[in-house]
């Protein structure tokens, strides 16, 4: 990598340099004069060429937000940096530089063409973000491991690749390997891959490719499963009944309950626990199903509501558009009449008429809008009432089901206490049939201990149930309030926007009319 201009001083990418480049590459001739007159903002620049400038460090590019094409070739850049803001970049040329690692490209999601020709890169990586990559040029680098090719399999749009001049291109299997591992590739090292080569390559590497594919497929399937599960959970969460379709709650009750676990070793408790669990899970399932059903209902309600509101707004807009169209037709004809009219008093009269028309239009449009606001308010209030009612009913029912859970727990608690005390008595009497394991045995010291232990377990369980219930209630309530707030806010925003729009339009019309007046007077 001999640099012709080794002797030259590295230059800094400063504002002046960029301005100069933008000016040079900007519009030419008449448009150029205009551009000079006005100055070009960096964020309007779409393409920038900065080659052969001895740049050492990429810098100061953050203003070029809308840049599509950037050429930084034939410089002495050593590190890819400072490109984070150029998210619209499609074309990036960094060839003939001194780059050693690929980095700093993680935000360039729109990049399609990347050239890193003639650098010092030895490994292909850090390109994961470039999902749209089509052309990748990595020739004349120091890539020496064939496995780098496998990395490129993830780019589904990649069609053109150049790797000549790398150590790997010396390998005899080079072309076949690439063709086999990148079957969608069309051009390799500036040449079209013919079908024959493709077939040959495929045949040659079939075994390893198949294995690779199999692994990739497995990964894919796992990912999909994961995603499906996530979605399912997400759905349950929107219904506020996640994890209630099974023994999750029950298990969590016992997860932190050491005493309870210890007590489960007592004779007769395991059966009791089993029965208890079954009943508990059934109630949980009930809650779950009820929740889903209610969620469905709420969704339908919301959909109908938004549909109706949308329809109403559309209808209103149509009316508005019609009014404006009518007005414009009339306005145009009267304007042309004014232009043709020669007598001043007549003109004035006509202009007056016109402005009357404008204000009439304003009134009409505003009336339409006010009407809509009133109608929507009524509808929104109705919806609010209904949705709040629904949520209330849901909470009430869930609470009653939860109360059943609590009853079960109480019942279980009593039974457990009974068994515990009787066991204690037996232990005290010494006529216990079998030896207890150490863990529960430590509890059976005296009555207080055992009662406390059982009570603590009971408290933990109740706490868990209460927590779950509270969570559900708070979340659904907050959802409800947020929804209603959002609807109100949206409506207010809509109203403001419309009023602004109307005013703007009317102002424009009025000012146009005023201009006409002035020009007439001038004439």
């Amino acid at each position, binding site marked *: 990598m001999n640099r012709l201009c080794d002797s030259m001083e590295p230059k800094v990418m400063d504002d002046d340099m960029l301005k100069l480049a933008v000016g040079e590459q900007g*519009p030419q001739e*008449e*448009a150029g*004069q*205009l*551009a000079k*007159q*006005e100055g*070009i903002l960096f964020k*309007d620049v779409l393409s920038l060429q900065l080659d052969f400038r001895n740049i050492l460090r990429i810098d100061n590019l953050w203003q070029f937000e809308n840049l599509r094409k950037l050429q930084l070739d034939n410089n002495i850049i050593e590190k890819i940096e400072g490109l984070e803001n150029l998210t619209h970049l499609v074309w990036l040329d960094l060839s003939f530089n001194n780059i050693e690692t690929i980095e700093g490209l993680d935000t360039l999601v729109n990049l399609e063409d990347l050239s890193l020709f003639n650098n010092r890169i030895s490994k292909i990586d850090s390109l994961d973000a470039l999902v749209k990559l089509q052309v990748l040029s990595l020739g004349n680098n120091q890539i020496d491991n064939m496995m780098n090719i496998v990395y490129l399999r993830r780019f589904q749009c990649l069609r053109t690749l150049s790797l000549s001049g790398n150590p790997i291109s010396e390998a005899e299997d080079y072309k076949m390997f690439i063709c086999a591992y990148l079957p969608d590739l069309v051009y390799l090292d500036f040449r079209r891959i013919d079908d024959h080569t493709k077939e040959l390559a495929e045949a040659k590497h079939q075994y390893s490719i198949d294995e690779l594919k199999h692994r990739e497929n497995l990964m894919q399937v796992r990912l999909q499963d994961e995603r499906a599960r996530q979605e399912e959970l997400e759905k349950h969460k929107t219904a506020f009944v996640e994890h209630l379709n099974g023994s999750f709650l029950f298990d969590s009750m016992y997860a932190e309950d050491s005493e309870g676990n210890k007590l489960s070793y007592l004779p007769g408790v395991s059966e009791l626990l089993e029965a208890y669990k079954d009943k508990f899970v059934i109630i949980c399932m009930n809650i779950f199903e009820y929740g889903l059903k209610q969620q469905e209902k709420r969704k339908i*309600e919301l959909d*109908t*509501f938004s*549909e*109706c*509101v949308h*329809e*109403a*707004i559309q209808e209103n*807009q149509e009316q*508005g*558009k019609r009014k*404006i169209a009518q007005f414009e037709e009339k306005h145009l004809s009267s304007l042309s009449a004014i232009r043709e009219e020669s007598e001043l008093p007549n003109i004035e009269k006509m202009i007056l008429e016109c402005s009357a028309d404008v204000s009439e239009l304003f009134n009409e*449009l505003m009336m339409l809008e006010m*009407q*809509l606001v009133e*109608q*929507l308010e*009524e*509808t929104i209030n*109705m*919806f609010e009432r209904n949705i709040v009612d629904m949520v209330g009913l849901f909470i009430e029912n869930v609470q009653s089901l939860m109360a059943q859970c609590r009853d079960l727990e109480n019942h279980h608690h009593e039974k457990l206490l009974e068994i515990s005390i009787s066991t204690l008595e037996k232990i005290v009497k010494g006529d216990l049939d079998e030896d207890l394991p150490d863990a529960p045995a430590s509890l059976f010291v005296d009555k207080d201990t055992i009662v406390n232990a059982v009570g603590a377990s009971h408290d933990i369980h109740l706490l868990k149930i209460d927590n779950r219930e509270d969570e559900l209630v708070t979340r659904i309530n907050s959802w409800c309030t947020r929804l209603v707030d959002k609807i109100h806010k949206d409506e207010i925003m*809509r109203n403001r*926007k*419309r009023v602004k*729009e*109307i005013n*703007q*339009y009317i102002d*424009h019309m009025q000012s146009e009319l005023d201009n006409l007046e002035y020009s007439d007077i001038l004439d």
Partner: protein
Amino acid sequence: MEVLREKVEEEEEAEREEAAKRAEWARTEKMMRPVEVRKEETTLTQEMLRDLEKKLSEIQIPISAELPAFTKDTIDISKLPVSYKTNTPKEEHLLQVADNFSRQYSHLCPDRVPLFLHPLNECEVPKFVSTTLRPTLMPYPELYNWDSCAQFVSDFLTMVPLPDPLKPPSHLYSSTTVLNYQKGNCFDFSTMLCSMLIGSGYDAYCVNGYGSLDLCHMDLTREVCPLTVKPKETVQKEEKVLPKKYTIRPPRDLCSRFEQEQEVKKQQEIRAQEKKQLREEEERLMEAEKAKPDALHGLRVHSWVLVLSGKREVPENFFIDAFTGHSYSTQDERFLGIESLWNHKNYWINMQDCWNCCKDLIFDLGDPVRWEYMLLGTDKSQLSLTEEDDSGINDEDDVENLVSLSSSRTEGMCVKASGSLTSVPSSVCVALAWLQQMSIGPTGTNILEIKEWYQNREDMLELKHINKTTDLKIDYFKPGHPQALRVHSYKSMQPEMDRVIEFYETARVDGLIKREETARTMTEYYQGRPDFLSYRHANFRPRVKKLALSSAESNPRPIVKITEQFFRNPAKPAEEDVAERVFLLAEERIQLRYHCRDDHITASKREFLRRTEVDSKGNKIIMTPDMCISFEVEPMEHTKKLLYQYEAMMHLKREEKLSRHQVWESELEVLEILKLREEEEAAHTLTISIYDTKRNEKSKEYREAMERVMHEEHLRQVETQLDYLAPFLAQLPPGEKLTRWQAVRLKDECLSDFKQRLINKANLIQARFEKETQELQKKQQWYQENQVTLTPEDEDLYLSYCSQAMFRIRILEQRLNRHKELAPLKYLALEEKLYKDPRLGELQKIFA
């Protein structure tokens, strides 16, 4: 059927008078002719013209002036089969039976008209009517149902009125003759239709009866034209959308309900008034159109077809009028009575009273009280079975035979689809069918509109609709016109006039649907274009006369204004997506209107003034803020920039040029279309289906070529299958199995023969080769000797000879070599073949 003799006489007199009148008209017509001739010769003054017009308007052209040209003199009977000219003994017998029956009938019912039993045929031979019916099933699937059969008969034959409207005809021609001449009276029509219907399985009968005047004269003026009856548009009931739960309440209606009611009442009154007027008008029209009472009502003889229910899933008895092909209910009051009816097996006489037309008739042919049959024991005997006596049964076979045998005399009707185009029956193979529809206005004579239908035209013209009142012509095309035309409506074929051309937009690259033209404007509608253009409207100014007439170059009309509209391009944001742009070319102004965003009611607008001026210092002003006036719904920063505006304007200028060009191109295209249409109209060539092997020349040639090739191939195969053993086997006694010795000898002989052949051939080639070489050598020698004295021509000759000889020698050499190479192979092949030959099986055994 009550017949009043006196009345008949009266009517006959009236008829005669009418005929006299007709003759008079004809005379006047003849007289008119010289006048017309004179008109051509001399220039007429206005007065004369007016006079002529008056005279002409006085003349009424009689509707049925031409009388039957279809008389027996015109019929060529020489080609008809013998059965047409003579009667078989059985037929004679049948005729005798019929005569007997007729005598008995006239004796029993003296007040009824004589029966129509055995009219003469075209060869002046009396034939029983049932034998004239010949059930025929046409080989065309289109002619399988009664409606298409009736339509065919009515289309194919030309109606000729009865010579005497009050009597059945004296002659009844066979369907063969009728088909050949394509003319016939009502009896011919119904006989033919009946034959076809019975052939395709209907229970059909020929009816001899009485019809109304309209029916007998095939006068359809009082019928509603079926072509003007527009298909009733099925009004789809809008499903009333149930108000949803959250549908907004409509704003309160603040109008007075009382006032509304009053208004509605007033409207209703006005409407009622209008309706009344309309009805009165209609009634008046109806009155005017109503037929004058027919003096011969109930006496006009007519023949039609009766189809009885039962067979072919016919649910109800009905009549078919063979003239028009229309079906009528048996209750129809135009059918005034039935005298008798027959099918191919029997003959029935109506014994019921027809005072109330045919409304009360009961068509139970098995009921001998109502229907007197002539022959016993045909299948129509629901009732008569019980009443049959023995003698009848004896007769039965006889009768069956009589009818069935004699009926063979009518040759099967055969409608040929082949032959030249012109002689093809219209319904079967419509080559160039056109049908005119005339809606006759209240005055009775002026044509309101004409519709012409076409088929198989190369220019894909399907229907031509000419409206006589507005003079508007509309052509409809099927897909496939070279210019993708669909509808073309115009008043004149001159360019730059009012016209609308619709296209099949999918067949066009530019997606044009419709182009409307008036004298000053042209409007085009597009669909499915990548640039989303939907509409282009151009306004023209009248042509300015060029001072210097610059050759024959086209002088396009100057364009004043072009308006273009675009569909919404979903890829662009609404505020950058132009909805409409107007190029005001005269004012150098460009107006843009953008699409409206979904949640907005106003759209951005922009107006460019393309003025190029020079400022005070003499510099050209490129762009100033007042050159672009814009209203933006949501003001944006970058659009305020002059650069942006400048670029937009430059772009628009380019677009303007393109649009102008497009408009001119469209004009040129219209010219081209008009030219093409004129050429097509002049040529009107027909397309011939590739499946039509008889008429498609190309396919015919191809088929013939294929056949020839096949034939040759076949010949070649026969040749190759020549038996190589035949000459040798012939020496041996035939039929015997070969002994081993014989087989071996045969084989050897065959092989040696073949060897000799090969050697001979080789020798032949060798000899020719040597001969050629020698000749060449001789020639060369001669050339060497005379080289000096030769003229250039001789030398040329010699050289050309040499090259040809060399060529021949080379070829011979090649052939010889090839022969040498192949000969052993061929020899081996023959040996192998002989070895495998089944006839020399003996050989195999030895080697086996």
